[in-house]
């Protein structure tokens, strides 16, 4: 799975928008949306929100956690704790990225939020790296990683499993290799 796919999944998350048009309920495979009343907040999936925003058909209301104070708290908590702390949304990174890219005019202090999310992300990825490192070094059979989001798993997961495969191969080759004829060459 690549990050584009993860982002695709994240686009199903609901966000609140304020439409500036009027439309009856629309019936989609994924569920019914609307009705859209001008000036009245309504919850829609992220993909629709971004689409409407790009057409200047709505204003996006940032999710509740997308607030400098709250994010600072989360960042500090993340830095303080050894383990991963729960994130406000399982798609916090994707949501932030998409919303800030497309609707930054509707989000107060967009730049600060971007930095804060990036900080949190970096902290978490660093933690992940450290724990992967120790995992490999100590040759553990399993590790428990709570509160990781899909995107984070995705960044480390593919590489880690592949790396482990390689190491496994190398290790298994090493053992028989001692007595293997190849050594004799």
């Amino acid at each position, binding site marked *: 799975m690549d990050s584009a796919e993860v982002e695709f999944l994240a686009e199903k998350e609901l966000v*609140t928008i*304020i439409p*500036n*048009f*009027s439309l009856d309920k629309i019936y989609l495979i994924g569920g019914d949306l609307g009705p859209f009343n*001008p*000036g*009245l*907040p309504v919850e829609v999936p992220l993909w629709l929100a971004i689409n409407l925003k790009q057409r200047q*058909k709505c*204003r996006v*209301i940032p999710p509740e956690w997308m607030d400098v104070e709250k994010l600072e708290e989360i960042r500090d908590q993340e830095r303080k704790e050894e383990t991963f702390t729960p994130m406000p949304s399982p798609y916090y990174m994707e949501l932030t990225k998409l919303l800030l890219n497309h609707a930054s005019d*509707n989000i*107060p202090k967009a730049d600060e939020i971007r930095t804060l999310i990036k900080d949190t992300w970096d902290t978490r990825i660093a933690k992940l790296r450290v724990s992967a490192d120790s995992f490999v070094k100590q040759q553990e059979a399993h590790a428990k990683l709570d509160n990781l989001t899909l995107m984070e798993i995705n960044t480390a997961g593919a590489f880690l499993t592949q790396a482990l495969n390689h190491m496994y191969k190398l290790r298994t080759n090493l053992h028989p290799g001692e007595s293997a004829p190849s050594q004799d060459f």
Partner: protein
Amino acid sequence: MPATQMTMRYGHPEGHTDVCFDDSGSCIVTCGSDGDVRIWKDLDDDDPKSINVGERAYSCALKKGKLVTSVSNNTVQIHTFPNGTPDGILTRFTTNANHVVFNKDGSKIAAGSGDFMVKVVDVMDSSQQKTFRGHDAPVLSVSLDPNDIFLTCTISWPLLQKCNDVINAKSICRLAWQPKTGKLLAIPVGNTIKLYKRETWKNEVDLSDNFITLPLNVVTWSPCEKYLAAGSINGCIVVWNVETKDCMERVKHEKGYTICGLAWHPTSRQIAYTDAEGNLGLLENVCDKDGIKSSSKVSGMGNKDYNDLFDGDDDNDNADNSNFLNENLEFQLTPKGKTNYEDDEDDLMLAAGYSKHRNHILEDDDSSVEVASIEKGSYHEKDEEKDEQTHAMPLMTSQRPFYDGPRPSLPQKPFQSGSTPQHLSHRFMVWNSVGIIRCYNDDQDSAIDVEFHDTSIHHATHLSNTLNYTIADLSHEAILLACESTTELASKLHCLHFSSWDSSKEWTVDMPPNEDIEAICLGQGWAASATSALLLRIFSIGGVQKEVFSLPGPVVSMAGHGEQLLIVFHRGTGFDGDQCLGIQLLELGKRKRQVLHGDPLPLTKKSYLAWVGFSAEGTPCYVDSEGIVRILNRRLGNTWTPICNTKEHCKGKSDHYWVVGIHENPQQLRCIPCKGSRFPPTLPRPAVAILSFQLPYCQIATEKGQMEEQFWRSFIFHNHLDYLSENGYEYEESTKNQAIKEQQELLMKMFALSCKLDREFRCVELAELMTQNAVNLAIKYASRSRRLILAQRLSELAVEKATELAATLKEEEEDFRNKLNTSSTTEWSQPMVVNHKVEENNAKDSEEDDEIEEKTDLHKNKQNPFCKNGNSADGPAIKSVTSSSQGRVNPFKVSASSKEPAISVNSTSSNILDNMKKLSKKSTVPNRTANKEKSLVLKPLIPKPKSKQVLATNFFQTCTSQTEKIEEKENPENSLSESPALSAQNIENERPKTGFQMWLEENRSLILADHPSFSEESDIIKEGINRFRILSDEERKEWAKKAKGGTTNEVEINETETKKRKQPSNDHTKEKEEEKTKENVNLSKKRKSLAVSTNQKLSAFAFKKD
């Protein structure tokens, strides 16, 4: 001029504090529980000098550069002032001293302590001290007589409760001698100040005031001995004039903390006070009115104040206004506010009074204070002079204490609904369901931004605000702006009519001079402005001046919707914080009328109007400052029903919801949550939240209460449908039907619930609210749950309802006839269609009901005659019930059948007519014969329409058949809802085999008419056999022949048919001719001929089928 209360400031950590002035009054000295003595240059001194005297300081006294404090190490210390260097310990106690005072010349101090002892010590020589023992309680406070003769101390004074420790004492009871003459000793006892005469120790006077509700703590004399100030443990400070015993000032501590220190400024009119929480406060201009200050100044200030409060011209006032809007009714609400207000009132009189005495006062008073402090001797004279003055102006002094009734509240300023206060530099001018108008008032520029929720109405616009527009409104058609007049420019109304189809989209109108626009609103096709001249001006949206009329009072706010104009105005003066508002509702459409004639507007106690407008559906609503939303209930004589309490939804105490719109369908209250304020800021852009409505019904937690609330809410929120239909607006039928269905369901639920609880009486009460169908259901429910009495009652109710319904229908019918005479076809035919639609739905419901009914009634039909339908009628009345129960399908049929027995034939005939239609519609092959048979027999039975009514029936039947679609839909349901007996009959109709059967079919209705009690098919057959036997042989043979012959005889039958068919149509024409003569000539020929022709067409249609 009332005492100006400066805001309190932090002085010490919480705990007991004391305060005094230095000799010249240049600084305030406080001590507190942190053991510090602070020296304040004034109240705003941010860097007071602190002297640490110990761990806790209990009391301090200052005289002649010596600062004496009693501190927690049980000592009384002396410090130099203002340097604060320690100057030794004066005396010690075994516990801490509670109070320490200087004598008049500063040579001695007296200190009272918790160890029951009082010591008097010479300041210069601390070895010179006297100890007073013998008290049998801790000494709360001490006071030295100015003449150094008496020392008084409060301990176990018989008037006071004895207590074993200072902290337990209710009041610290700081008593005070008159500072100069020492004639009187003032002691706070409970809620009063007792004045004791020197030497006789007689209780001379009690000073008290209603304002004081809790015991007084401290008392202090003014340096001139004329006034006495006292502070209570709940933060009241009251000042009396000792001579007149009038209460001069009443001030309430802003937080209501205990006043524990009180000191008069030695020269000026200031009182410094401290509270038990360590705060320091200052009252300025205390008792100014008695001419201590220059009176000209006083009167000037009084006037200004008055202007501030009432006139509303200067900037100050704008701030006031906004305050008023935003936050602070508290200003009025707190007792403090009351006093202020009252004082203002008095000042008006004072100002007047003073002008008379100005010269006189000016002379002596400027100097009086200084003189008093220097020349002791002349003081008395001055004092007396002043007394004379007060007597000379009895009005002003007597006014204050004697008037204790309700106080008028400040009338609310005019406002636009959905706007934020004017003094804000960024504010909303309007936020409504159409869009938002924001106003920016920066230093550089001032601009107005208009934004529409729905961009398809109009794009967002940006206007520069050079004229300083302050009032705005927004609708689908236009933007309306208004500004107040300035010195050069008149008040202006500016309309941006963006929906205009021509190229000029703006117009402005100047108001006449001295007339300011105070409120504006937009409706559909019109704009209105209310002005300060109490005029309401209506303009067309294109700028044509229309009606002008006078308002009954100063406008508060206005709202428009469609043709409706809502005006809220001041009906009079409110008292004790209440507003006294009236409301007018006008309709400006074709039919101009006044719906609400300036009725009083109910508001929550001590609240003001915060929002007024219409729901999206056009029902007037308003919100008061307490967050109660009320809506007009047109079905209860235009009363106001509270539908929501937004405060209940608030999390914090100071949170509010700022209402922007109300929708009845779906039920939504659109508002903006504001944290800690009444209105939202423009940035960050606030988001709308939706609240649900809830009527304040009792016991909402119980199922019963819930359902009742739901029922009445649904009832109220569908009132607008009635209004819309009344006024000829379009609306969706489905919503109405849904509403009725919902209401009936709720009623049924409540019915079932009360049934379960054995509340049969209540059941009947509920049934009274039900529609006919629901009542039938209820009857069924009752009989099934074996409540026979209830079922009986309900059936009686059902009969009543049916007759009522019939009566109203009859009236309606007559109405229709009247209309017929005057109006054109289209006008009445439309509502007819509407009617049918409704009924169609009803019929559906009833169909369902009846299906169930049929099952149960197989067993129970004896109990419940109403389930039996049409033909089985027990009596005319009951018959009418049944027919009307489904009868709303065809109201005209009902009315016919509801006639007295004499015409009951009609009813049967019309029933059969219906049957015929049914069958013809089915038009299957086997039916044909039956059809023929029917129509054959029908003819003799068709009554010659004798009355107008019958004609009408026929007429309308044809009319309805014009709208065949509806009919066709309607009839199947009709047929289904007929009783099983009838359907059985139909089945028989399909295959008439023997002559008798055919005969029976023909004559069934006759039999039924003669024997209305027959309900069973077998009875009818029996009777039929009897009759058939009576017939002659020939006739019988003919019937048999017919039965056998079938096709062969068809032609013959057709012939007879046509003959007979002609007959009724002839009848019709004859009838109509009669009618013509009888009736108005207006009854147009055309229509009749149309009716006839349709009749013929119909019959032709029937024949074609054959």
